């Protein structure tokens, strides 16, 4: 199969012509920047990104670690809940914590984020209650968090469609004069998340065209986790996805997606550019989906386990933990505290999921339209009467006898 030529199996060296921005090595060392390397990175992401990385304090880094660890704990709990039949489906983020936390932390409070269905860490960073995320996968509602308060739009499942919404939103931001004012509380960027598979969709290409044409303040964050279900990334693109941006007329950067510092710095620089009115950027976070595509998928059918093992060595949490321990004197206590917090969150989440109210049938008639609609009202009336009739004597034909 294709895996032998797969970039993931040979590491980023398989794509020597595209520099991958990395700031922490897999061992947790801060990359020493010699002159050549610094110049290369400045060329790729601008000096600002390097400055953002340098400005991160030990507290910032520990905060990032905490976000990643909590997201991973939520993910583990959700997977368990799915296995126990409490969720219909779960799309695991395992392995993608750094790409998500780094990018989400780079966003300003007023920025708007457009996720797909796997951005649970993004949601968490922005204050979305994970129970809201799980309610969607339990099938009791469509997510239901406050998009205005959190700046996180609802998850979308039709691949790539949200990249156009993000671009349109960014065009609105421009029209509202909320770019390039120099006021850090007003200037607004938009983050559009999508996957390597999604990069093949027409909608994504059209989003690139619109964003470039109007110089919309949008950052395209592609989490290249190497697989679109069973199809490897090179089946979607012959050149690194980041390089596609050049053809549309805006910068593209590939960043080590398992390096939270690099993800933060690069997305922060791109978002700053967007807010300053300098237009879109494509950031390709080169990462890996460690688990199955979703709980219904069986990656053993298409993916060599040796590849998974190789990526395990680049674990985003282990990398930051090593760095914090070695260079910032963070000790066992702090990590134990994060672990305790994670367990408490998971326990609370489990309680919340098990206690979720089942939706009443009337709810499906709500919000199909913003204003009353005769067809919906007619079907609602019919259904209410039908259910009332069943309660007076009718019984289920699928199972019991009818009365």
């Amino acid at each position, binding site marked *: *199969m294709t895996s032998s030529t797969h970039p993931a199996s040979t590491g980023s060296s398989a794509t020597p012509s595209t520099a991958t921005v990395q700031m922490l090595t897999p061992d947790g060392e801060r990359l020493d920047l010699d002159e050549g390397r610094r110049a290369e990175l400045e060329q790729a992401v601008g000096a600002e990104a390097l400055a953002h990385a340098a400005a991160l304090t030990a507290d910032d880094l520990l905060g990032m670690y905490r976000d990643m660890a909590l997201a991973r704990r939520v993910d583990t709990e959700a997977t368990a809940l799915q296995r126990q039949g409490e969720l*219909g*489906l779960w799309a695991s983020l395992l392995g993608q914590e750094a790409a998500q936390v780094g990018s989400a932390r780079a966003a300003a409070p007023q920025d708007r984020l457009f996720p797909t*269905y796997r951005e649970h860490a993004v949601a968490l960073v922005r204050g979305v209650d994970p129970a809201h995320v799980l309610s*969607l*996968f*339990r*099938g*009791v*509602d*469509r997510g239901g968090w406050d998009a205005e308060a959190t700046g996180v739009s609802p998850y979308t*499942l*039709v*691949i*790539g469609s949200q990249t156009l919404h993000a671009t349109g939103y960014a065009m609105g931001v421009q029209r509202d004069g909320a770019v390039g004012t120099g006021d850090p509380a007003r200037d607004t960027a938009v983050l559009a998340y999508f996957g390597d*598979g*999604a990069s*093949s*969709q*027409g*909608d994504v290409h059209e989003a690139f065209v619109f964003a470039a044409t109007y110089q919309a303040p949008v950052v395209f964050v592609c989490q290249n986790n190497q697989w*679109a*279900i*069973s*199809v490897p990334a090179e*089946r*979607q693109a012959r050149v690194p996805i980041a390089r596609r941006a050049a053809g549309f007329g805006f910068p593209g950067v590939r960043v080590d997606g398992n390096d939270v510092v690099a993800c933060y710095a690069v997305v922060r620089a791109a978002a700053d550019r967007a807010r300053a009115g300098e237009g879109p950027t494509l950031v390709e976070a080169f990462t890996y989906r460690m688990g199955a595509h979703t709980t*219904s*998928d069986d990656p053993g*059918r*298409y993916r060599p386990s040796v590849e998974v093992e190789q990526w395990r060595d680049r674990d985003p949490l282990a990398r930051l933990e090593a760095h914090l321990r070695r260079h910032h004197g963070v000790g066992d206590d702090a990590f134990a505290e994060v672990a305790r917090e994670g367990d408490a969150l998971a326990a609370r989440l489990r309680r919340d999921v098990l206690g979720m109210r*089942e*939706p009443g*049938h009337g*709810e*499906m*008639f709500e919000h*199909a339209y913003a204003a009353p*609609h005769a*067809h*919906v009202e*007619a*079907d609602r009336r019919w*259904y209410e009467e*039908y259910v009332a*009739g*069943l309660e007076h004597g*009718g019984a*289920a*034909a*699928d199972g019991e*006898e*009818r009365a």
Partner: protein
Amino acid sequence: MTDDVHGTPGEGRTTQRVTLSRAINLGLRAAMEKEPKVLVMGEDVGALGGVFRVTEGLAKDFGDDRVLDTPLAESGIVGTAVGLALRGYRPVCEMQFDGFVFPAFDQITTQLAKMTHRTRGAASMPVVVRIPFGGGIGAVEHHSESPETYFAHTTGLRVVSPSNPVDAYWMIQQAVESPDPVVFLEPKRHYWDKAELDTAATPYPLHRSRVVRPGTDVTVVAYGPTVPMALRAADVAAGEGRSLEVVDLRSLTPLDLGPVEESVRRTGRLVVAHEAPTFLGLGAEVAARVAETCFFSLEAPVLRVGGLAVPYPVSRLEEEYLPDADRLLDAVDRVLDT
């Protein structure tokens, strides 16, 4: 796979017990063996065998030149299938789920459907677009749609839906052989239903409807996922002394209403069932036509049983949304009480 394959054709046995998904797989195999120009294409159809495993093993047996794991781009899949067909190939495209056919909607309705007409018949479009459709599997948003009417409404397309493994086996081969584009709707919640398949039998014509259960009191018309439901309802009704005749449409365009009209002339009563909302659904067409042709035989208004005028609901509510045997029997009561 997990279904019991008692024997394979060629070892002398022609009968095996198969699931609906396996039946489509066997049908595709037969079509690919017979005609080297048949290609299978779609997302994950290769090594994975499709998310429903319908194309399992085809890439291994026919090579990835004939089974194309495509990029994740539905418009691309159907659009290139149009080009391949112009070049003499017979692509069978898989849409992963019903809700994801819409990125390809433009290519299907404006190009695939119209190429034959546009070329004054010079170009035929032997393309099949397979779509797992309908609800009942507890899925998330966009995984349980009933898009049949959009396609049936577009002249130039043929739309069919098998309701059981035997039909699935034959109909997929007939669809591949069709010189016209066929939208092939697979009732996904019945992928695992089993039946005895005789691969040496004579296939029933693709565009014919069929009485699948004779009866005398009320005619019930269904297709795809509502056929097993209608058969269950007919069982319950029989216990109550009511005889339902169930007609499986099988083909939505062209629509074969012959057996329906004949049945209505005997029963005088008609109920049409589908999962799609009733407004402008197939049932509206059937009701209008039967009103035209059987007006003097009808003892009661034609009733439709379908999905509700709401977006497909969250999975915990889908059993409320979907028409079930109770809802069908309620309609049966109403036409009999008239």
